């Protein structure tokens, strides 16, 4: 099966600070891939690179045969219509109701009549279990509900690629399980490629087909969830076991303590 989405030897940084160093990844349709790693390890950066919001210094991002960063603005916009993105806190448009938020991509990009859009929106909301909340304003939604509405909006145009930025952050166990199940079910039902960026090992591993662990700007480890759990790699072990000290150090870089306190040489 030809690669649907690939990153080839991508290098990205701000000035002297390198965030991603020579990263190569492959994503296929029908599979859920989890990106895990410490804060600042570049997980969200990868999503932005795929969406064309950031430009790599070296390497290429190829989506369905198109080099994302060689496209002009119209080409990039055409490509983005085939990507769905779920933001950490939903990023719903606060001046619109839930219904209007989900209808937004349809109204902007299609010429469908209102009656048809209405049916489609209700179906999308039904898929995430919130058809009854269609009339609610964004301020009236709880955190978990807002995220589900945002998910309905992300799948409004049935995109072949859906990206999730920390979809489990700050949710209660029930909402968390709901979102996780939805991600898996939608992926299987739509046959799309899903990329989940998360800290939540247990829930991400439960739904992922493949896992990438990012550390120090490189892919420290990758494999199926079971392979990762059995791995002896120190990066993987620290993350999975939750050790506070390991390859990701506990102490932020500093002078020796004695020096700071002004004690003897």
């Amino acid at each position, binding site marked *: 099966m030809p690669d649907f989405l690939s990153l080839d030897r991508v290098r990205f940084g701000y000035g002297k600070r390198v965030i991603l160093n020579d990263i190569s990844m492959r994503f296929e349709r029908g599979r859920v891939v989890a990106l895990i790693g410490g804060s600042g390890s570049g997980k969200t950066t990868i999503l932005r690179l795929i969406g064309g*919001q950031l430009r790599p210094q070296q390497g290429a991002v190829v989506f369905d045969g198109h080099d994302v960063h060689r496209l002009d603005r119209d080409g990039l916009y*055409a490509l983005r*219509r085939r990507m769905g993105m779920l*933001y950490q*806190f939903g*990023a719903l448009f606060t001046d619109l109701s839930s219904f209007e938020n989900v209808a937004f991509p349809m109204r*902007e*990009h299609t010429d469908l009549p209102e009656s048809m859009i209405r049916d489609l929106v209700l179906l999308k909301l039904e898929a995430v279990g919130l058809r009854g909340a269609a009339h609610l304003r964004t301020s009236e939604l709880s955190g978990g509900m807002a995220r589900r509405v945002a998910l309905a909006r992300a799948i409004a145009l049935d995109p072949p690629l859906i990206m999730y930025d920390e979809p489990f952050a700050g949710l209660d166990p029930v909402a968390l399980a709901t979102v996780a199940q939805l991600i898996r079910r939608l992926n299987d039902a739509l046959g799309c490629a899903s990329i989940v960026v998360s800290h939540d090992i247990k829930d991400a591993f439960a739904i992922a087909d493949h896992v990438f662990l990012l550390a120090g700007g490189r892919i420290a480890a990758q494999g199926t969830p079971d392979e990762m759990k059995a791995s002896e790699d120190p990066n993987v072990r620290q993350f999975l076991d939750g050790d506070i000290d390991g390859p990701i150090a506990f102490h932020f870089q500093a002078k020796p303590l004695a020096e700071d306190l002004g004690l003897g040489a």
Partner: protein
Amino acid sequence: MRTLLLPLQWLVEFVGSVGKGARFFVHLCWLAVAALRRPRLVIDQIHFIGNYSLSIILVSGLLIGFVLGLQGYYTLRRYGSEEALGVLVTLSLVRELGPVVTALLFAGRAGTSLTAEVGLMKAGEQIDAMEMMAVDPVARVLAPRFAAAVFSMPLLAALFSALGVLGGYLVGVAMIGIDAGAFWSQMQAGVDWLDDVGNGVAKSVVFGFTVAFVALYVGFNAQPTPEGVARATTTTVVAASLAILGLDFVMTALMFSAN
């Protein structure tokens, strides 16, 4: 050597940011015209920007009319020219106070709300989300607001001036007792519709462009944090007010010095 380069670097940055601002302005004007093809969006914004500013503009206009009437009367009385009150009040309003005070109030009320709204959208990743949905946020969010603000300003300034004239009439004729006939006839003789009213309208259009641009630019480029947004709203009021007063001087010199 390093210290010598610092002011130069600062100058280059400044010129660069001016260029960036100018490019943004032209882009916004262009998109604002395109936004008229979606009248729904613009009309909604005219409602938020224009209608919601009506109360402060109308009340302020009336009050300033009262004050002009009083102050004008006391001053004119010294030269025995009380009957010129009508022309004094109207010219002051139509040429200067109407456009300028309306613009300042507008910057404070509508300008800050625009900046805060756009800044908060940016902070809540809504702008980002829109970009990822292949919708240009400048065209969809900023341009309709720009068009609505430019359209609303001259109307608000006209309402301000009209109410000010009414205020002056109420104080001068109804309260103090100046002859109503003299009030209106001297006004009509002294106020030219093109030179005075027309120039005032031209000023308010320019101010509309200014306030709208400053508010949207500052909001769009604000730091996406609560402090960033708060700072941005202050910047909008200060920058817009100074720009209005500066442009007022330039335009007054251009328009009225020929007389």
